[in-house]
């Protein structure tokens, strides 16, 4: 198989756990994304942002991983948002229904502002 090309890192910004995804989101991404999600959840994250890079490749196996994250987010009463997707992948997220479960923003800054409406 060709080399896996995804870097996943986490950081906290204004009380939002940001998971940065740089590279291809395919079947090979499962452990990296799930581990990052578990890491931020274990630290008590209530707001989770999946921050993509505009030119990433996301296939149906990658979408399946993200649906798995949605399942966990719902179970853990967290709020999930997505930023940095290209117009094409925003369309894909709407087609498969992911947009029903995660707000989609153009930029990280817009997503961080978007979480404000959930803060008590």
């Amino acid at each position, binding site marked *: *198989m*060709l*080399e896996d090309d995804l870097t996943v890192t986490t950081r906290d910004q204004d009380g939002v756990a940001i998971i940065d995804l740089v590279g*291809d989101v*395919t*079947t*090979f991404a499962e452990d990296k994304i799930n581990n990052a999600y578990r890491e931020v959840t274990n630290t008590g994250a209530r707001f989770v942002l999946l921050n993509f890079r505009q030119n990433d*490749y996301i*296939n*149906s*196996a990658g*979408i*399946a*991983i993200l*649906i*798995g994250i*949605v*399942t966990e987010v*719902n179970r853990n009463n967290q709020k999930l948002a997505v930023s940095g997707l*290209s*117009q*094409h992948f925003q*369309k*894909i997220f709407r*087609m*498969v*229904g*992911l947009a*029903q*479960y995660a707000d989609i923003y153009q930029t990280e800054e817009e997503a961080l502002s978007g979480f404000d409406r959930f803060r008590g």
Partner: protein
Amino acid sequence: MSMELTLPNQLGYELIARDTIAAFARRLGMPMDRIDDMKTALCEACINAMEHGNLLNPNLRVQILCHVDDDRFVIEVYDQGLRPFVPPPTPLSIVDKLTGMGSLRGMGLLLISQLSDESGFVPRDEAGNCFRFTFQRSGAAHVCR
């Protein structure tokens, strides 16, 4: 006009095919948004061929044929079909998946059908599956379903 590619049956090689077909489509003047649709549809068709047709056997190959005429850009993806690929009659929705009614996978054909203007398996007399999908060369012809 036509073009042919043959890939090793290994996940990841669909990206090489994607970039090649995208370059071909760009030279033929396809709109960028349709090329994005074509790239995703092609990758999904190749992954299906590798996983479901060729059962991830690294000794097999996936073949891609492109035929282009004045109206249509047609892509056919062939596997060496260790077994015929039988897609489920109705793909599960995300709601079904979230409620545990089935695998989280299995959205490839749904994506291809939504992104292309026409798609489906082509009956063959010989072994192997052929999946064909088509894009109108006029971008305005496509309506996002």
